[in-house]
């Protein structure tokens, strides 16, 4: 996985968000084994305690589960993955709408822009 961190906000929360995105997008597959805390910490360049905290949080939220000896795995529960995808998508939509409102755009203008962009993309891919 690629790890990038932003200035503000706790690191463990940023790791939770990144793994959630990887699970929701299918980059991490259901049932896939997740590397150990030490390995992940090295990969992300963070402290092992921070990585451990993020993994514990992901387990608490049900996105990962651990098996005592075999390690830690991505959930195989489709409902949990779908919920994570929906939660992230809603977040992106909120961010988008906030930005549009800050620009002073009204609802129907936003709709028009979305439609126009959709047509342009369809034309671009020849669909």
């Amino acid at each position, binding site marked *: 996985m690629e790890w990038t961190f932003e200035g503000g906000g706790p*690191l463990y929360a940023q790791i939770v968000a990144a793994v959630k995105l990887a699970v929701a997008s299918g980059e991490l597959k259901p049932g896939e084994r997740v590397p150990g805390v030490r390995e992940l*910490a*090295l990969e992300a*360049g*963070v*402290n092992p305690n921070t990585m451990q905290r993020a993994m514990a949080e992901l387990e608490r939220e049900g996105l990962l589960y651990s098996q005592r000896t075999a390690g830690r795995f991505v959930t195989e529960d489709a409902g949990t993955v779908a919920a994570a995808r929906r939660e992230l998508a809603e977040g992106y939509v909120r961010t988008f709408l906030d930005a549009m409102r800050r620009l002073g755009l009204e609802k129907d203008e936003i709709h028009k822009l979305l439609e126009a962009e959709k047509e342009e993309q369809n034309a671009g891919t020849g669909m």
Partner: protein
Amino acid sequence: MPVLECKGLSKSYGAKRALDGVDLRVEAGRIVGLLGPNGSGKTTLIKLANGLLTPTQGRILVNGLEPGVETKRAVSYLPERACLPDWMSARDLMGFYGDFYADFDRQAAEDMLSRLGIDLRAGMKSLSKGNREKVQLIMVMARRARLYLLDEPIGGVDPAARDYILNTIISNYNPEASVIISTHLISDVEKVLDDVIFINQGKVVLAAPADELREQQGKSVDQIFREVFRC
């Protein structure tokens, strides 16, 4: 028991107060950033912890003991300036460290050196500055100590060497031991820190878990540092 504890710790050089009533606790398993501008007292605190200096007032305890023979067994120290005899090769250094420190893990040192591709027979003199600093860090981190004191480990090395040094610190992480990293290069180290201690003019101005600070203030430790120490 904390790995390092300071109680009302002060150190004066003549009329100058380098440390002024410092109270601190560092627990096992923590990687701690000792952060402050130049001349804030970071090196003085580290030298007190390893017994190179003695307190003017107050106490400093390592594993509950005053610095001395017992604590030196448990403390692995990386000085600010390279101190390795430059006629020695990496192999000589491993022998040297092995003779001095019962907890020196020669195999671990050899593994780290070979991953760096360092010729074990080459004298330190023939290595680049970056590689000399890495070799010294390897010697320090290959000890199975309880307390690692790293004084400016990333000062004056290029970004790739910096990553190597930070990765070496992470990969040698031991939940029984603590690491104290003194630096003023906050943005480079902040990702590896559990806790931060801000020190200024000999006084601790802030001591807290790094993620707690980021959460409360919505800023990076680097940004908070710049605000606290604004000139």
